[in-house]
């Protein structure tokens, strides 16, 4: 009997791998766009000017406060009412990008805040201008501090990409579910899908752990 499961698995695998590819593509694209947008939000949320800061902080809080599922469905099912109709792939990328940007902004800001105060004092005592301190002392170290958390978040976004099945995006979970619906062998196929997800997330988490240790050594 075990061998028959493996047989089925090898039969289903090609479709699942197609789905996995879509999952990875959607994740990768969302991360690139989301990290970039997140840095912009980090800057805006730290601005001295209330006019800039308040809306930015508000957007970030909304982005972080709503479940990713809601963001996905709002973008795909909801926006057409407002005249913006997107296909499943772009909609998923947009939703995940916005979520990523919101979390990234806070992760980066926390990293910047974590730079030891003593260094800011030393920099000030040396006569370095505030702009120089931000540019050369706070930002390089702050980003370094934020990096492991950002990497951890990237893994999270990959997990969240599975929610796009509810939009009909042909990613990994979608493929697994439709095979399940056709064969009624839900457990077997979902197990395989789960293993594929774990095959990415577990090694990735381990790498992030290693990175964290290496960075802790230097700072």
């Amino acid at each position, binding site marked *: 009997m075990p061998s028959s499961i493996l047989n089925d698995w090898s039969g289903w695998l090609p479709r699942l791998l197609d789905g996995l590819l879509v999952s990875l593509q959607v994740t990768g694209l969302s991360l690139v766009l989301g990290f970039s947008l997140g840095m912009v939000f980090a800057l805006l949320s730290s601005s001295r000017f209330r006019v800039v800061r308040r809306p930015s902080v508000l957007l970030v*809080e*909304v982005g972080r*406060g*709503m*479940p*990713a*599922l*809601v*963001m996905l*469905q*709002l973008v795909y*099912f*909801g*926006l*057409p*009412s*407002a005249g913006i109709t997107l296909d499943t792939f772009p909609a998923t990328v947009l939703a995940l990008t916005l979520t990523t940007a919101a979390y990234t902004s806070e992760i980066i800001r926390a990293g910047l805040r*974590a730079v030891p105060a003593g260094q800011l004092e030393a920099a000030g005592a040396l006569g370095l201008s505030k702009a120089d301190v931000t540019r050369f002392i706070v930002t390089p170290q702050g980003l370094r*501090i934020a990096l*492991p958390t950002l990497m951890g978040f990237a893994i999270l976004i*990959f*997990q*969240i*990409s*599975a*929610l796009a*099945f*509810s939009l009909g995006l042909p990613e990994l*979970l979608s493929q*697994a*579910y439709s095979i*399940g619906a056709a064969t009624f062998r*839900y*457990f077997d196929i*979902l*197990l395989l*899908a*789960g293993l594929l*997800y*774990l095959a990415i*997330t*577990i090694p990735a*988490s381990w790498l992030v752990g290693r990175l*964290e240790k290496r960075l*802790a050594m230097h700072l």
Partner: protein
Amino acid sequence: MEHVGPILAAAPVTLGVTAACLAVGALLGMVLLSGRRSRSWVVRTLSRMVIDVLRGIPPIVFLFIVFFGIGSGAIRLAPFEAALIGLGLISAAHLAEIYRGSLLAVNRGQFEASQALGLGRTTTYVRVIGPQAMRVAIPGMVTWAISLLKDSALVSTIGVAEIMSVANQDARASGSSLTPFIVAALIYIALGTPLAFLSRCLERRLGVTGGR
């Protein structure tokens, strides 16, 4: 505005699911934690693997495995039960890690002092280490509770009648499908904000300076 009523009425279900899964997770998390710290290498490794799997698998995939995979075969699981098991186990894994971190944060000297005083293992953990570890763990637990609140939206996909499923129904029924989702989003934010505020207050009051 007629959208708000029914969606808001589902909020207690969302809160109920979150609270129940949190409770399950808080208890089972301790089981996983003791497994992780067991003297037996086999139990330790097994616990680590279970925790890694539960934290590495997308929650929705695990939920589907529990509901469609297990829960529609020999054992029939109601949506709420499946949600409890699925999100409860995932919570257990995350909380086990939070507990583990909090124990590490307690000064080694506390344990040694207890030993030197001749306090037994149970007393040491319950009266000395435990309370100190809890102070460190609570902010982390609140943070997880907030995540869980958002993850609870997933259970709409297996049929639990909480905020998202009502919002979905509403969107399908009425013409405008943007409003229900916006309302849902706002309700989640409204539910989560007091928790976030609580977390910040707790962190300040408990005087916890986090390691990175």
